[in-house]
């Protein structure tokens, strides 16, 4: 069955080009074309279309995206873009549309984009979750990895893990992967990429979870420009419903920039000497001093022992902030990560997995 296509495009030339290419393909049947969004919203329903191309470089068409989503709820609604624009793409996503496609495109591209955006999950903005730790060795990477696996498993939606611990990223090792392309390639190529061409930089870890790897060597870290990393992350939000970023330890331009655009920041701390709580406090104060209205920074303490509410209160008192998440110790974790078998996870009935599972549920609920 061919898609019944409606094209909404104010530029005559562009409209002709799109219609021409669609007519050559047996997969598409152009049922109507419009040069303004009001006409399309009023009339297109008569043709029962299931695929829209709407020029979102045109501001009033962009603003009408949510009206298209409401009026044609079962249809794929694609915004067409002259050049990739992360902010327009974000607006399209917030409107609940299928996604954006870069002009010029071929019939094959359309099918691939529809496929890419369908497996992504619900047509809602992606959630960007970052893992920050003051000094490192906090269980940050392990937690990010397990959470990704659980979210993908529970939602059936696509999850991206980005290893932005540029000098000493451990995620490829946790999953026993040796990717040929890393963040160095993705950030250097980003100006030439669109969601469809960025997707292959992510390597499958397990059903629904893919990894964009850290550079192979610490000296390559300087090849990753913080502003390009932001562009990669923003584009990844079009391909994935959840984008989870593992950051390098401490405050640096990279970690601060990524946290600035994040929906949730987890400040991850493991208590050893006891002074780690002070470091977490300093970190929270630093984030507080530059906070917007949303409370998006959450505290996570790993390997909490004893794993009790009393202990939670004790930490909270020293911290001066609530302890949002407590993760228990699990000795088996080390050997699992050591053998590159993190993707297999641990038995669901362990306290560790139950706790992280509850954390995943909360994140999913907040994104619904």
């Amino acid at each position, binding site marked *: 069955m061919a898609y019944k296509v409606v094209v909404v495009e104010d530029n005559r030339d562009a409209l002709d080009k799109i219609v021409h290419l669609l007519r050559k393909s047996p997969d598409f049947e152009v049922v109507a074309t419009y040069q303004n969004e009001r006409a399309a919203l009023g009339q297109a329903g008569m043709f029962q279309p299931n695929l829209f191309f709407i020029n979102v470089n045109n501001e009033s068409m962009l603003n009408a995206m949510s009206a298209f989503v409401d009026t044609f709820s079962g249809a794929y609604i694609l915004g067409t873009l002259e050049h990739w624009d992360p902010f327009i793409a974000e607006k399209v996503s917030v409107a609940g549309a299928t996604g954006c496609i870069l002009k010029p495109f071929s019939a094959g591209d359309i099918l691939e984009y529809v496929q890419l955006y369908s497996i992504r999950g619900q047509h809602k903005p992606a959630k960007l979750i970052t893992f920050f730790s*003051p*000094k*490192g*060795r906090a269980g940050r990477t392990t937690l990010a990895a397990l959470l990704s696996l659980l979210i993908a498993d529970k939602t059936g939606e696509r999850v991206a893990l980005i290893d932005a611990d540029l*000098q*000493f990223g*451990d995620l490829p*090792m*946790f999953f026993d992967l040796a990717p040929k392309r890393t963040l160095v390639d993705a950030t250097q190529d980003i100006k030439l990429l669109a969601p469809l061409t960025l997707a292959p930089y992510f390597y499958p870890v397990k059903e629904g979870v893919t990894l964009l790897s850290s550079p192979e*060597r*610490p*000296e390559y*870290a*300087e090849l990753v420009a*913080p502003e390009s990393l932001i562009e990669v992350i923003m584009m990844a939000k079009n391909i994935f419903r959840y984008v989870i970023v593992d950051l*390098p*330890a*401490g*405050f*640096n*331009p990279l970690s601060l920039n990524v946290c600035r655009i994040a929906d949730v920041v987890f400040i991850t701390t493991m208590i*050893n*000497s*006891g*002074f780690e709580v*002070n*470091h977490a406090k*300093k*970190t929270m*104060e*630093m984030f507080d*001093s530059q906070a917007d209205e949303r409370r998006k920074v959450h505290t996570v303490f790993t390997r909490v022992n004893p794993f009790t509410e009393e202990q939670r209160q004790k930490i909270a008192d020293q911290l001066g902030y609530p302890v949002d998440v407590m993760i228990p110790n699990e000795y088996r974790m*080390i*050997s699992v*990560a*050591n*053998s*590159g078998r993190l993707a297999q996870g641990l038995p669901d009935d362990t306290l560790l997995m139950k706790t992280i599972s509850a954390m995943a549920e909360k994140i999913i609920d907040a994104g619904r």
Partner: protein
Amino acid sequence: MAVATQSGIERSSVIISVFSTTPGIGKTITAINLSAGLAHEGYKVCLADLDLQFGDVLNYLKLTSVNTVAGAQRAMLDHPDKFRVSDFLTEYKHADVKFSILPAPLYIYDAYQTDVQIVTNIINDLNYFDYVIIDLNSMFSALNLAMLDISTIINYIGVIDFLPALKNYKIGYDTLILFEYEESKIRLVENRADSQKLIEGGDVERLLGEPFYHKLPNDYPSVKKSINTGQPLMFAAPDSKLTKSFDELVGLYTNRQRTVLPEEKVTTNKGGFFSGIKKFFGF
């Protein structure tokens, strides 16, 4: 030994930086116990805490001070002519052992504002000490590279209990060699060497192509006691095997004939990778 440095000072003090590529593996404990051990031998020692954002030297010694690297930087900028580094040092003293400490900034904001060249100048001003021990953090930042450049010895420490930690130790060592630090200057020190683990020390040495210079045993109870009492191991756990092992390491570092060759030059890397990474990290 006297070595001409970038700023033209004849440096006579031995600078030992304590560096690793994995956090939380005992850098600060090592730095403190090296300082205490060297002071115990009668040397004038200063311990500089350059883990600027989250330094623990004062925490582990139960000391507080408002004088830090941040204050020293401000003073050096405001009144370079009147600047005296000794105004910003804090003293650790117990029994016959005393050494000076240049503490890390109290606030992250101050740590973030730290300038690599000014810190280098401050460390240069510590030249009147016999030994300057520098506690760093676990990455190749502009500051850490500048400190490794001016160091006589890089005490490169690792705990090899976890595969990613081994990977980071090996990659870190290769990177140090790549940056053209002399192999003789890099001292491989294994911490928690005798703990139960999956990876054998001998395999690690084969992988690195270098033997460990020294191995510190695993002794968590003594370390815990040291942190809880705010005292170096020689006071908190005088008879422990870890205390003895640190004493041996101090012995290695005080035998100047063996460890510091007279013709050994301090490298001063300018430009190249160094300036690139400086731009990237912004501090």
